[in-house]
């Protein structure tokens, strides 16, 4: 609230009172110039570090670039190979879609659940919030993936518990093609911190009067949650869904570490990005890897667009507008 007051620029110190409008517009023009000047580092970064490499990679996707030698133009060969002659590409798409479609809703539901629990006035609540956010900071890290390998390994903590419960020969979760992907999904769900924080912010924006009114009408807590909380925070759910969707498509670390960079066993953890990495940096098919990257961009864009299109039907904005 205080920020609103300081955001307005101070009145220009120069110029006589009579030429106020004039000075003002030239001042704002000067301000615009300064603005652009301050934007320059970011702008140079965009062109040199983002747009440039992206365009180069688009070019490479039409070549046979191998990293070690100069690229030759091959037209659409890479794209053709992808869709007609590459079983592993389809395996990677299958694995990644499963991962995204299963992990994103689970993670969001889990994050929302925790956010609701943390959205109350308890003593030391901020400590709990920080604590629950911790896995997100660690989740993508190498150390946790290594830990996951141990926990879900043959002699890991999970199996020790299961054996204790009488399951004599539980599977080696991370090394069994039926389960390996689900351990990664679990790891993803465990990284619920950042959507949780966003949910928490959203929950605190829900006007208390709504609840009070509903309580007066005799609505149960469950009803209040589904009839008030959820509808009001749909924009937040939508935002989180988009962010996590994009993030899940780009997941890499966990599969790289847990499968030892192979996507195994039997390609069951061959994330799209991992396959892209293997093609580019192990098989030195950088041109093909670039094509894979652009197809991934297309897939993510399509999913995001579909989400936006569907959002009209379920996302409600408080101000009634879109």
């Amino acid at each position, binding site marked *: 609230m205080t920020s609103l007051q300081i955001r307005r620029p101070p009145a220009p110190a120069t110029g006589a009172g009579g030429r106020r409008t004039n000075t003002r517009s030239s001042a704002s023009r000067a301000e615009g110039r300064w603005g652009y000047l301050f934007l320059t580092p970011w702008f140079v970064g965009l062109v040199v570090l983002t747009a440039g490499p992206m365009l180069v990679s688009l070019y490479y996707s039409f070549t046979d670039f191998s990293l070690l030698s100069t690229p030759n133009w091959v037209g659409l060969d890479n794209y053709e190979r992808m869709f007609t002659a590459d079983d592993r590409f389809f395996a990677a798409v299958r694995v990644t879609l499963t991962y995204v479609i299963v992990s994103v809703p689970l993670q969001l539901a889990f994050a929302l659940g925790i956010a609701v629990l943390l959205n109350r006035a308890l003593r030391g609540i901020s400590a709990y919030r920080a604590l629950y956010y911790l896995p997100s900071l660690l989740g993508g890290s190498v150390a946790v993936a290594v830990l996951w390998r141990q926990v879900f*390994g043959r002699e890991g903590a999970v199996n020790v518990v299961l054996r204790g419960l009488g399951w004599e020969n539980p599977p080696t979760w991370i090394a069994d093609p039926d389960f390996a992907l689900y351990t990664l999904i679990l790891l993803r769900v465990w990284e619920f911190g950042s959507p949780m924080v966003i949910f928490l912010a959203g929950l605190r924006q829900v006007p208390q009067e709504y609840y009070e009114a509903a309580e007066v009408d005799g609505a149960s807590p469950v009803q209040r949650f589904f009839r008030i909380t959820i509808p009001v925070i749909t924009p937040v759910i939508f935002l989180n869904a988009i962010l996590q969707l994009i993030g899940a498509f780009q997941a890499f670390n966990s599969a790289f570490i847990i499968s*030892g960079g192979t996507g195994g*066993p039997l390609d069951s953890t061959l994330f799209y990005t991992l396959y892209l990495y293997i093609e580019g940096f192990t*098989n030195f098919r950088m041109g093909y890897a670039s094509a894979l990257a652009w197809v991934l961009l297309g897939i993510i864009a399509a999913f995001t667009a579909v989400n936006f299109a569907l959002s009209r039907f379920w996302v409600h904005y408080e101000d009634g507008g879109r």
Partner: protein
Amino acid sequence: MERRNFLRASAGIGLGALLGAGLSACGTRGGSGSASLTMSQYGSSSRLELLEQVFEAYAGSYPDRMVRLDAASVDNYIDRLATQVSGGNAPDVMGIFHNAIAQFARQNALLELDDHIGQALDTSEFTDGLVDLGRIGGAVSALSFGDNAHGVIYDVGLLESIGKSVPEPGYTWEDLLSFSADISRAVDGDFYGTEDRSSQLDQGFKVWLLQRGKYAFTADGELGFDSTDLTDWIEYWEMLREEGAAPPADVTAEAGGTFDSSALIRGYAANHQTYANAMSSMQALTESPLALTTLPIDPSGTGSGHFLRGSNWVGVFSRTDEPEAAVEFLDFMFNDPQAVEILGAELGAPPNRALRDTLDYSPAEQQFIDYVNLITDELADEAITLDQEFPAAWNDVNTAFGTATEDVRFGRADVSESVEQFFTTAEQALRAGS
């Protein structure tokens, strides 16, 4: 001469740093002239430390030379190196995995060493045939730091605890089956008699094939074996798993490619089938004494199936500013008594045979040296070049091989299906090139 004296003098008054670069760019022959080299290497910190010592010894012998270490972890070593090559700023001297040398050489990233051999680079004391292994497209593109061979490392402690001893060279595949099944039974399934490395195209399968007089790839870059060979191989390991001699699929899949994640070190199996030079690194990871033996033989086969392999390889960047100095440095690492003594068996059995026998080794290293001598001098069948060993589509064929064997192991496909799938995929990849 006068020019050089002038430069030397100016170096003394502080211009050296600037002018030194100019001088070295001129290039000098015969071990004189200053040069600054970079060498990249992967591996343990103790290995890198030994290399640093070699660099120091080199700078001691050639005061105007220096070598800087560019160390990187094994995991991203090759992609890092390829990126450096792509940018034209690769290290002058590069340690390279054997399966990447052909790839690098075919893309002209490696200096051809032929003209230097017998000149600045003395290979006359090397084991016969070692230099030829590094030929890609006919040209020597890399050198091996040492002789190596396929072998099996056993945990002697485990075996002794159940009254068994390490199989002597000459035991058969049949023997491995019964021996391993006995072990598994004796320990009631606590661990298995042998690990299952049947998915690794570059491991025991090659020995199995050569006992049938075949190589994985022909000189023309086609598959050197047929569906019968692969079917027999897969069925053999299927039998070991059924008999409980080898672990089930998920246990095998959990073991990683590194020594410390191997089934032997993790305590799931009594052995590790690998390259023999793993011996001392593996020994460092366990209290229990280890021993090295050959892979089994095929009594109806043509030979031992074992062959001379290179261990860790080294090449020179084709676009280095210092080709002569880099080659001279290679010669120093391979032939200088001090350098060879420092490195010991760290990178393989020292290729210089005259020096190899003069060194003191740790017990584990001594076992490795004795083993390699046994293979190279008595048992070895004919070896092939890295060019033939690793065709352009190597990675694809290797992946397809892993998939075919794993499919069976996990019960996802029957043997004939997966063999057929392998040949379709592999032949397609080989036709496509890379």
